[in-house]
């Protein structure tokens, strides 16, 4: 692994230590970039077809990675918007297995970028790790993010991911101690999910300063691109963050649009238009990245 050279974008690399072929997608679409747009969508919200089409649309609107959320009865790391999306999805009997299988259908529709499965640990445990990896391989999944599996509890899964060539996305937070930060960031694969506590309790202006200091520290240690999540909902925020990290993760803001178009997404006749509108929102949100690209 290379140590990141500070201040220079697009300089990350992931060695392919004999891992499977899926990390190739990270190499192609993620590594070395500093304008990552990583949308989070809820599998099966409001139905499988909508999720598939939305993933493809988001790729067309500049997404670099799709984070595919699996609905869970007790999503304790999530706010109300994502909880409600999970409830909607669970009504369709969406499971971890059905969600992984839908990735293949996304690929068939032309999805090329990496797909990360965002799942609580209990769902993975019940599916069985071996079966999970077999399914992931077969359905061209690129990585996994388990929000309730901190670094210390993840050793076994990390080893399996490495063997299978899947990215195990790690998280760091402003409360993460320096020692753990070094360890977690130094072992990051795919990208490093950096939790700003901004989004948890609403934007606090006085908190901004410490977030930037935190991001600087994270970037110093990270072996992968650093993306910021939790509470990113406006182009202004993307603009403010773009110099300090390599990308943004957008969840609730997007899910809210899905919720407001629920009826249209359910109806095959209106679905395409609704998906375009959601795509428009995504494009507007990430406009600051393109502005930069244009001006470069």
């Amino acid at each position, binding site marked *: 692994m290379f140590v990141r050279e500070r201040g220079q974008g697009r300089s990350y690399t992931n060695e392919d230590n004999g891992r499977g072929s899926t990390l190739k997608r990270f190499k192609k679409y993620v590594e070395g970039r500093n304008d990552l747009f990583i949308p989070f969508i809820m599998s099966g919200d409001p139905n499988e077809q909508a999720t598939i089409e939305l993933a493809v649309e988001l790729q067309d609107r500049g997404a670099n990675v799709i984070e595919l959320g699996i609905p869970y009865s007790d999503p*304790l790391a999530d706010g109300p918007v994502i909880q409600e999306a999970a409830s909607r999805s*669970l009504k369709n009997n969406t499971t971890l297995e059905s969600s992984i299988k839908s990735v293949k259908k996304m690929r068939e529709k032309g999805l090329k970028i990496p797909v990360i499965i965002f799942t609580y640990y*209990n769902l993975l445990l019940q599916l069985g790790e071996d079966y999970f990896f077999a399914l992931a391989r077969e359905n061209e999944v690129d990585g996994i993010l388990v*929000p309730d*599996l*901190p670094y210390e*509890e993840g050793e076994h899964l990390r080893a399996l991911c490495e063997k299978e060539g899947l990215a195990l996305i790690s998280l760091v937070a402003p409360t993460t101690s320096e020692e753990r930060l070094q360890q977690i960031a130094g072992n990051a694969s795919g990208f490093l999910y950096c939790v700003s506590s901004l989004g*948890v309790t609403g934007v606090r202006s006085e908190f901004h300063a410490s977030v930037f200091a935190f991001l600087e520290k994270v970037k110093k240690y990270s072996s992968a691109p650093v993306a910021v999540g939790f509470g990113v909902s406006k182009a202004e925020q993307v603009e403010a963050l773009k110099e300090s990290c390599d990308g943004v993760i957008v969840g609730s803001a997007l899910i809210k649009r899905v919720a407001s178009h629920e009826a249209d997404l359910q109806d095959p006749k209106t679905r395409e238009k609704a998906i375009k509108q959601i795509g428009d929102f995504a494009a507007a949100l990430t406009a600051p990245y393109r502005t930069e690209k244009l001006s470069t």
Partner: protein
Amino acid sequence: GRFGRYGGKFVPETVMHALEELEAALNKFMADEAFLHDFQEELREFSGRPTPLTFAKKMTERLNGAKIYLKREDLNHTGAHKLNNAIGQALLAKRMGKEKIVAETGAGQHGVAAATVAARYGLECKVFMGEEDIERQALNVFRMKLLGAEVVPVKSGSKTLKDATNEAIRYWVSNVEDTFYLIGSVVGPHPYPKMVRDFQRVIGDEAREQFFNRENKMPDCIVACVGGGSNAIGTFYPFLDDESACVGVEAAGKGIDTPQHAATLTKGSLGVIHGSLTYLLQDEAGQIQEPYSISAGLDYPGIGPEHSYLKDSKRVEYVSITDDEALDALTLLSQEEGIIPAIESAHALAEAFKRAKEMNKHETILVCLSGRGDKDVHTLMKTMGGEAH
């Protein structure tokens, strides 16, 4: 942070720092004479410990078998064993310099205990409670408010205990710097299950001494009910190296062959809930199921990880008792001994009564009477249709 393979810290990264901080504080203060002295003194002078060991003479005569002794946790201030732990955690929060506590509650018993210690030790208190539970437990909601706590309605999920727990954790994540999360049972991520056990073991420590003074031996059998499992661990733990058989009693609700029960160890499977690897009630895909019991305190889909360990190691036997059996035991103890037990505790009593009949008169059973039944009178009136006989 494990009991065999069970336990652990299955929590978001944002919480990890708080758990490390808690663990450091525990290591420091559980070896600190002054802290332990304060804890013991408050148990004694505020909560009224030691709670007595009551010989159930008429029940023993009626069943004509083993002698039945009751460890009277119902006589604690606020009416159940819950306060032992709440005092311990609140004193710890103070030592850690926290100004606020947050807690989850189902029926409101732990919420009341948390509000009580917050008042006593001068902490701000927020209690998360499912909207449905707020509706059902208006009296306890009022008690918490009277004690100065803020009760926050939880509208997510099934709007009951497990969702209130999720919400309390979410709040804690966002306010971890000045807020202490006061968990009500031996559940949650490490070091909670161990800490709560260490605060609750006073039940068993006292009972062991009292029982020996009375009978000059250890009980042949010890019975306690298990929801999250704090009164059971507290009772069993000091006896684990003795010969006494230990029996944990889960809620079989309307029967373990129906979907309406809370018999986690009997019918559940391995998984992760509220930060801990343990047995739990879930569907095939891993979605956590809503449990059922007439007793709000046993109505929890998980169980403390140490119980999972004690089940596997066979040191403790786990059985289950239905709503109807518990109600019968509640009525029987009320009429024979003048003690109206909590419906939770009535599950332990029902199992103890079954066993006492099969044992001989030289044998003994110790039952943890974890709480008083006053809180359940509304439920009983509805269930029994106003007729107590």
